[in-house]
């Protein structure tokens, strides 16, 4: 179930053609190791989030190609992109973006609604995911009442509900203390073991230097400035 994601000459220009046009991503070539963990590093404003949205089909590149298993997905019509977001990419947002007023369980089940999965099976699957991530006891709680760590696990469960091959997380440890960050890396290593492709953006040295990370790509001003393979380095 490993998925290969490649970027070829990807550019993203905001407000193109206007005086305030801005090149957030300026020609990135990158290929993510299938079934591995990649970290996008770089200073604030370097374009990490933007690049994640381009890969996760939340936005389209202005130029260049995003390929999934060799197939160009950057030019697909909207319903296909929606299907990819639903089933191939799971997204954990920096601010989690849980829907307030709904319970943890309902938030987790949300991405499966368009599939029309039978309710009982879906509830069971969502419950099992929450259990596995250690927040099973919070299933009936409204999301407003969650702590940062619980909200993050809920967001991860939601991203995983449709069993995606690629999991994308934006600044996953930004709101977490060391213990919770380590717990998150534990989850990442479990997902990696299942063969999923993982892509994280992070400032956090704890994440960049984690043993589970296969590769760190460094962004600056929308360009890839360093592409480091920690495993290869340590082997030298």
């Amino acid at each position, binding site marked *: 179930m490993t998925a290969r994601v490649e970027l070829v000459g990807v550019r993203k220009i905001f407000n193109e053609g206007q005086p305030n046009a801005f090149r957030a991503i300026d020609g990135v070539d990158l290929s993510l190791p299938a079934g591995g963990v990649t970290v996008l590093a770089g200073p604030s404003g370097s374009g990490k*989030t933007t690049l994640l*949205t381009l890969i996760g089909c939340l936005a389209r590149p202005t130029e260049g190609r995003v390929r999934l298993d060799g197939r160009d997905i950057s030019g697909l019509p909207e319903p296909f992109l*929606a299907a990819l*977001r639903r089933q191939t990419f799971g997204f954990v*947002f920096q601010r989690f973006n849980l829907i307030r007023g709904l319970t943890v369980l309902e938030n987790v089940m*949300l991405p499966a*609604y*368009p599939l*029309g999965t039978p309710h009982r099976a879906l509830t069971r699957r969502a419950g099992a995911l929450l259990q596995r991530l250690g927040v099973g006891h919070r299933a009936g709680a409204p999301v407003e009442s969650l702590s940062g760590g619980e909200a993050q696990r809920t967001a991860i469960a939601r991203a995983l509900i449709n069993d995606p091959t690629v999991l994308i997380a934006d600044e996953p440890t930004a709101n977490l203390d060391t213990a919770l960050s380590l717990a998150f890396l534990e989850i990442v290593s479990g997902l990696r073991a299942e063969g999923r492709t993982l892509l994280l953006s992070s400032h956090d040295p704890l994440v960049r230097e984690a043993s589970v990370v296969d590769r760190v790509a460094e962004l600056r001003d929308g360009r890839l400035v360093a592409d480091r393979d920690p495993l290869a380095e340590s082997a030298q």
Partner: protein
Amino acid sequence: MTELRRTLARQRYLLDYTVASMSRRRTRNLGLLLVYVGMVFLLASVLFYSSALKHEAGLLLAEAPDIVVQRMVAGRHALIPAQHAESLRGIRGVRVVEGRLWGYHYDPAVRANYTLLVPPADDVEPGTAVIGPALARARGAGIGDVLSFRGQDGTLHPFRIAAILPQESALASADLFLVAESDFRALFGIPEGQYTDIALQIPNPREERTVAEKVLEALPDSRPILRAEMLRTYDAVFDWRSALVLLPLSGALLAFAILAWEKASGLSADERREIGILKAVGWETGDILSMKFWEGGLLSLLAFLFGTAAAYWHVFGLSAPLLAPVMQGWSVLYPDFRLTPAIDATQLLALFCLTVLPYLAATLVPVWRAAVTDPDEVMR
């Protein structure tokens, strides 16, 4: 799982989600529902009321003669002599000719006009009267009681009430006061051989116009009135009156439209964010539209049902206390009677289209605009 079951399950999820999301924004949705129900209620009340009145008037006129012949003197309605009736009997196509005696009496005690009438069979005993239900209620009179009127010569005429007319034919009979011919003439000082007007029965409706022309030839001082013309006048009156009520209502309608548009086009930041999240986790534009369609549909359908049910109860259960003063106006006795339910399906349909469809459109357009944009905004 078949495709159909999948689709149904999906819509079911969307519906559940909608209900949950509506209850999350409870206060706002309740407020909106309230305004919406109020508007449907007013519109439906006017529609029900005017069509019920028309229906009643139709019933009333169904029993009316085909042609009424009045005598005109100096452009005013005057008494008509019995000889006139004789000269009409010869006209071809006319079956029954009868002189009628009727008029109004103003009763200061209840500040209302009664319609005094000599029934065609003249089967009311002199000194007694048969009265309409509304009149009986207004005067608090029962069978055996005595009502007295002051006649044209100032003398007091007592009438013992022999019977009260049944409730059903309310509009027609509410304010009736049936008396014997001799009493009627004494009360108003109308000499023998004079009538209020003459009624003609014409079995073949296609002959009505020619008969009317011949009446004019035979009696140049007369004015024949066809039943069809009376019907039209009634219709015109009711339409005019409902227009009178609908005019300010259309103001309310406009206000509502603006409100709906405001609500809809000004998607709150919260709603916008929610749409973005749903799209980001893989909902299609169509899913979001379906969801919002359910939301708008539920709200407007509820409003339509509550509004029309309340209007039905208001008009046919309570006799339209809010509209009666404007809509019937001409007699204070009328508000006491109950209208028989008469509802026009096309009117209901029109009401539905007028209230539900614009609301749906007003809500869906901005949602559609929000739903077709890229979902990356929620990332910020």
